């Protein structure tokens, strides 16, 4: 028999993802206000490396979440009064969130790969250089990183609104992602 809500692993990964995404947004707004790097001014070094570490980790988490969700599919919600457009919007928003998280991480990595800064994953695994420093490419991927991030924030707002809507109706939908 299929279970009623998402598996515990999926629930933990989902909330880990949520906290990490919000941390990345909030910390990135702050770290972009730090002085530009120079040999004497290294304010940006730690926050930028942490940003990359969490971003790369997010890719791993979201791929794990995708695997868990596809492998252990819960029964569809028994909500007969949910309008079809609402059901399809929810599916579209989920697909968009998965796609955009991956896109934001990929564009961020590609932008960083074209700078003179190396990527040392959690300060222990050195990523091989995939490109020479190139200001134009860095700027191109950086712009894409920024716009996909704004789009992600927008779609998260839709996702959160949906969750709050169902919580206010107390129809049991949000309970599926809160099984602990």
């Amino acid at each position, binding site marked *: 028999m299929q279970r009623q809500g998402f598996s515990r692993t999926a629930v933990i990964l989902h909330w880990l993802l949520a906290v990490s995404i*919000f941390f990345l947004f909030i910390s990135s707004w702050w770290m972009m206000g730090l002085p530009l790097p120079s040999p004497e001014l290294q304010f940006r070094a730690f926050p930028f490396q942490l940003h990359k570490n969490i971003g790369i980790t997010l890719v791993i988490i979201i791929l794990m979440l995708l695997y868990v969700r596809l492998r252990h599919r819960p029964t569809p919600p028994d909500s007969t009064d949910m309008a079809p457009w609402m059901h399809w919007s929810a599916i579209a928003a989920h697909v968009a969130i998965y796609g955009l998280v991956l896109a934001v991480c990929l564009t961020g990595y590609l932008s960083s790969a074209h700078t003179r800064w190396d990527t040392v994953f959690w300060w222990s695994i050195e990523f091989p250089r995939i490109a020479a420093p190139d200001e134009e490419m860095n700027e191109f991927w950086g712009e894409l990183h920024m716009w996909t991030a704004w789009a992600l924030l927008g779609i998260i707002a839709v996702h959160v609104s949906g969750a709050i809507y169902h919580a206010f109706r107390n129809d049991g939908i949000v309970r599926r992602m809160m099984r602990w």
Partner: protein
Amino acid sequence: MSNENNKTSLPHWASILGVVAIMLGVFLTAVHANEAMKQAVVTSNMPADGVMPAADCPEEELEEEGITIAECEYLIEHVKGVALAAPDWFPNVQMTLAGVGAVLAFISVIIGGALVNYTPWASKAAVVVFSGLAAVDLLQFAAVVNTGPTLREVYLGGILLWFILHLMLVVGTLAGRHSEANA
């Protein structure tokens, strides 16, 4: 087949309060974690004599960041101003409170889920954790009030807003518990 997803017998107030607590908890965990990082990064990178080197603002970096030379120079002045406005005790106090706040905020996400499912311990734990978060806000407020105008301008408005939100969560949970007790 009974569907546990549609347990409409679970109290409405707990469902609403739980989801609001989760949303705020996710956001606040990130805010507090960022605050702890902020203090650590600024403190550890400030020159010992407090004299900042001249700004390094190459043309291509300015273009990439979308800022002017004046703004590039201001970034240094800004971080210097915030660091110099902080009394010696402030970074450690703020880091400790932010660390405790991040842990409590993350626990409030779990508590929020328990409220939505209305587990037996949920409402009691919610009062404790939401009160703890309100206490962290109060302590941060007290710490910032004892600094100067620069840090008050940066922090006080946000801290006050969080305190009001946490107070609402505490009072909302207490009201829900009283309604359940009287039902």
